[in-house]
């Protein structure tokens, strides 16, 4: 799919069209010019170039490797480049169980990421604590940091992860300038 086709989708931009004297329409400068909103093309660029930070703590990591590998291939959706520095990442993939001892680290990583940033809760432990309803486990990472996409499953199938990623792309496409910056995590003062 070419860039023009992508841009022509629903909210995307359109070719600059000029009516002629005869009533026909013609593309401005032979179709080499497109009109769009800066916000729309910016979101379009963001949604196809996630730099993810894989915060992998548990068995979901195996499923993450599967979905990131060539068989399911997150690269098809532009999310294939894991950055192991939060400063360079804009998608925080929380993959696995988060214990209370781990929580301050997760918050610190989130706070270190540059805006704009999104959070992907991968697996039921990250979503809600899962079956670890005990003294040690955080009952869902949304008690620590804002979450954009919840993908349950223990672990989730690669198809679910891809579905979650596509939904995140839709969400990014609908984003507004005013959504960012989101600021630090609401609980970050406990640690820092």
């Amino acid at each position, binding site marked *: 799919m070419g860039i023009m086709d992508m841009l022509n989708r629903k909210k995307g931009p359109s070719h600059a069209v000029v009516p002629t004297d005869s009533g026909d329409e013609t593309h401005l400068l032979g179709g080499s010019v497109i009109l769009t909103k800066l916000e729309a093309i910016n979101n379009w660029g963001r949604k196809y170039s996630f730099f993810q930070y894989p915060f992998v703590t548990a068995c979901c990591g195996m499923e993450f490797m599967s979905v990131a590998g060539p068989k399911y291939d997150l690269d098809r959706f532009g999310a294939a480049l894991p950055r192991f520095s939060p400063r360079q990442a804009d998608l925080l993939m929380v993959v696995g169980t988060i214990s*209370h*001892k781990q*929580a*301050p680290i997760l*918050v610190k990583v989130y706070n270190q990421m540059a805006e704009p940033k999104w959070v992907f809760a991968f697996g039921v432990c990250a979503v809600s604590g899962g079956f670890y309803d*005990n*003294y*040690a486990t*955080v*009952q869902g990472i949304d*008690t*620590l940091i804002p979450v954009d996409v919840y993908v349950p499953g223990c672990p989730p199938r690669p198809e679910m992860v891809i579905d979650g990623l596509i939904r995140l792309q839709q969400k990014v496409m609908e984003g507004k300038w005013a959504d960012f910056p989101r600021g630090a995590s609401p*609980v970050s003062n*406990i*640690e820092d």
Partner: protein
Amino acid sequence: MDANTTINKLNARFPESVTETHAYRGDDTAVVKKEDLLQICKFLRDDKELQYNFMMDLTAVDYLGREPRFEVVYHLYSLPFNRRFRIKTRVSESECSVDSIVSLWASADWFEREAYDMYGIVFNGHPELRRILLYEDFQGHPLRKDYPIKKRQPQIGPTC
């Protein structure tokens, strides 16, 4: 050597300290008084016919409602003789401490920290007895049977 060598030697050497023994299906076990634990462990490690030179496991059990309430369990292994031995010692809730065996087997270090973390049993003479799995601010000891199952600690995240 017959299977009960360790028990026999222990009974002969420490008749006052060993309160119970059994060797069910070759699982040689002795319950000893906690005051003499260190002495007995040293004997088991250093005796020429025993040489339990490998401290494989150390854990605790909470028998809530029984007195003494806790039991500390040690699993020893003798590499020269391919033999295993279990020692148990009972610890009451009011005097919740037992001598550390880190001076005999360095491998006991983290096990004792874990038992302290989860059960609150203090190991006297441990070089650095602090929590190993949970964080420093955690209140209580979660593997005790009277720890509230729904209790949440206010570190970060939900408190209810």
